[in-house]
C-alpha cells in the first residue's frame, strides 16, 4: 500500500520491521526524526525493543556493538559530527566483524558549522571496513534497510545505509512499506556465530600481533570483496519479495549508447534524470547511479562504462588538497575513459535542474581537473579564488 510518509518516518518503520532487539542513538540533525519515530513506536508498544538513549554517538555505536556481540540484532543512526565521534567505534565494529546496520543521514562536517546535506561524513569513514550503500530516494532507503540486515548477518560485516539528510530524510513522498510478513520471510531471526554466550565462552577483540595482523586485515578485505555477490542476491531476492528493485551495485539509465556519461551517488541522481528531460536540446547521457560504494564494484562499473568516451563523476564531498573521492577511484578503475570530476551541493547548496547543462558544458572544456562546480568565486576574496 502506498502511503504518504516523511523519509525518516518510513526509515524508522523499516528498522522496526526488521525486529531489532536493541536500538541505541544520540540525537543529531538531520538524523533525529528517525530515532524520534522509533522512540514513538516503542512508546506505543508497536516496537518491542530495548531503546538506549545514550550520552554520545561514541556510546551509541558502542552500545549497538555490545548488543550485537551479545546476540541481539542492533541498530544505530547518526550524521556528520556524530559519525566522526563514533569513527573509532565504526572501525572497531568492522574489525570485529560484527553484523550491525546503521543509517547515516548524510550531512556536511564543520567547520564552518553546517547542518545541511552533503556526504563528507560517510565518505570520511569509507575506510572503516563497512559496506556502504547510498540511496537515491526514500523507497530505496526503506528497501536497502531491510536488505542491509540480511547482508550484514550473512557476511558478518556492518552495513551503513547512507541517506541524504533533509533531501531525503525530511521529504514526504509516496512510499510503499513492506509488510511484516514480507520482512519476516526475507530476514531470518538474528544469528551471529560469535555471540557472547555463557555456555560457550569465547574471547572477542583480542590482541593480535604482527604475526597474524596482516592475515586478519586480508580476510576483512576479502570478506568485503566477497560481499558483492551477497549484496546482489540480497537485492534480487528482495525484488522478488517486494516487487521493487532499487538496483544492486549500480544501475544505468538514460541513453545506454551514449558516449558521454554522468555518474552520481545518492539523491542527486533523480534530479539529473529529470534534467535530461527538461533540456531536450542537450544530448542525453548514460546516467550511472552508484548504489554500493564499499565494496567498490569495479567490475560492474567497468561494464557500465563500456563504450564511454567521457564520464563526469558528480559527488557531494571531496578530499581537500586532492580532489574528488569517488571520482579519483572511478578514474583509477576505468582506463580509457576520460573522467571529469565535480563536487556539487556541498553543505546543502541546492542542486537545480540547471546543473545538468553546466556539467555538460564543463566537460566540453576538456579540463579534467577536479572542481566544485557550483562554487561562486565572486563571494571570495581575490586571493582565495
Amino acid at each position, binding site marked *: 500500500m*502506498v*502511503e*504518504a510518509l*516523511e523519509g525518516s518516518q518510513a526509515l524508522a518503520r523499516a528498522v522496526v520491521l526488521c525486529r531489532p532487539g536493541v536500538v541505541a542513538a544520540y540525537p543529531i540533525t*538531520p538524523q533525529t526524526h528517525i530515532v524520534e519515530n522509533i522512540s514513538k513506536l516503542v512508546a506505543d508498544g508497536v516496537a518491542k525493543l530495548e531503546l538506549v538513549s545514550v550520552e554520545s554517538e561514541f556510546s551509541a555505536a558502542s552500545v549497538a556493538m555490545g548488543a550485537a556481540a551479545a546476540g541481539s540484532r542492533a541498530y544505530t543512526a547518526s550524521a556528520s559530527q556524530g559519525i566522526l565521534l563514533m569513527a573509532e567505534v565504526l572501525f572497531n565494529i568492522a574489525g570485529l566483524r560484527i553484523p550491525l546496520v546503521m543509517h547515516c543521514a548524510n550531512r556536511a562536517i564543520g567547520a564552518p558549522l553546517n*547542518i*545541511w546535506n552533503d556526504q563528507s561524513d560517510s565518505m570520511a569513514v569509507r575506510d572503516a571496513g563497512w559496506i556502504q550503500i547510498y540511496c537515491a*530516494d526514500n523507497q530505496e532507503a526503506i528497501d536497502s534497510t531491510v536488505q542491509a540486515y540480511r547482508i550484514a548477518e550473512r557476511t558478518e560485516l556492518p552495513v551503513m545505509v547512507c541517506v*541524504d539528510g*533533509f*533531501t*531525503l530524510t*525530511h*521529504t*514526504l*513522498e*509516496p512510499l510503499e512499506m513492506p509488510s511484516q510478513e514480507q520482512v519476516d520471510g526475507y530476514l531470518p531471526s538474528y544469528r551471529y556465530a560469535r555471540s557472547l554466550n555463557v555456555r560457550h565462552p569465547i574471547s572477542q577483540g583480542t590482541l593480535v600481533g604482527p604475526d597474524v595482523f596482516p592475515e586478519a586485515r586480508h580476510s576483512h578485505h576479502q570478506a568485503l570483496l566477497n560481499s558483492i555477490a551477497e549484496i546482489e542476491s540480497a537485492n534480487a531476492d528482495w525484488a522478488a519479495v517486494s516487487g521493487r528493485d532499487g538496483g544492486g551495485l549500480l544501475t544505468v539509465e538514460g541513453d545506454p549508447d551514449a558516449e558521454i556519461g554522468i555518474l552520481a551517488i545518492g*539523491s*542527486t*541522481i*533523480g*534530479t539529473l*534524470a*529529470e*534534467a535530461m*528531460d527538461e533540456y531536450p536540446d542537450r544530448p542525453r547521457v548514460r546516467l550511472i547511479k552508484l548504489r554500493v560504494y564499499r565494496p567498490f564494484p569495479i567490475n560492474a562499473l567497468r561494464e557500465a562504462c563500456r563504450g564511454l568516451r567521457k564520464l563526469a563523476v558528480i559527488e557531494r564531498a571531496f578530499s581537500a588538497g586532492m580532489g574528488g573521492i569517488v571520482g579519483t577511484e572511478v578514474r583509477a578503475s576505468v582506463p580509457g575513459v576520460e573522467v571529469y570530476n565535480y563536487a556539487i551541493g556541498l553543505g*546543502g547548496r*541546492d*542542486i*537545480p*535542474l540547471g546543473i545538468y547543462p553546466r556539467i555538460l558544458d564543463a566537460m566540453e572544456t576538456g579540463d579534467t581537473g577536479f572542481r566544485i562546480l557550483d562554487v561562486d568565486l565572486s563571494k571570495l576574496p581575490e586571493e582565495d579564488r
Partner: protein
Amino acid sequence: MIELRIHGRGGQGNVVAAYLMAAAAIKEQRYGQAFPAFGAERRGAPVQAFVRIADVPIRRRSQVAEPDFLIVQDQALLHVPGVLVGLRRGGGILVNSIDSSEHLSEQTGHPTIAFNATALAQRHLGRPVPNTALLAAFLSLSEVLPIGALAGALSDRFKGKVLEKNLSLIEDAAQQVPGGIWKTMRRAPEVANG
C-alpha cells in the same frame, strides 16, 4: 507538474502544511512531494516549504525556484526579500490577511487573494493556526485536488475532536474564496517523459 511554495514563520506549521498538501495528492493516487527549506530557524523566523504535485513520479530534489503558486501564512512576509522571487508570470498568491485582494494584487503585481485564515482557524479550532484553512482555500481556488483529498490527509494525521474541528474548518474555508478562479492558471498536465 504543479509547484508550490509555502511561506510562513517558524511554529506556524509550515512544514505540516506542505506535508498535508502532498499527502492529499497521494491520497488522490497522484504523486506528491513536500519538503521544508531546511534551516536552523527558531520560532517566529521566516521559513518556507515546497510542494510538488504531478501525475508521474517526481524524482527531482531541487528546491522550488519557480513556483506556480505561493501560499503566504503571514501578510508581513510579503515584505521579506525573496518571498515573491521566481513566481511564474501569472502565478497566484494566497495570503493570510485582513487586507483586500485588490490591494494586495496591486502590491505584489500578481493575482493575489487575501483570506483571513487566522480568524477562521480561531473560530473553528480555538487556535490562530492558519495553515489548514489556507490549504483548503488554495484547493478551492485552484481545484488542483478535491477538498476530500485534504480531508483524507487530515484524517491520517489527526483523530477525534481535533480531526472533526479541522474538517469543519476546511469545509468552511473552501467556501470563503471564489472557487475555481485559478483553475486556468495551472500548467497543462505533463505526460511521462514529456
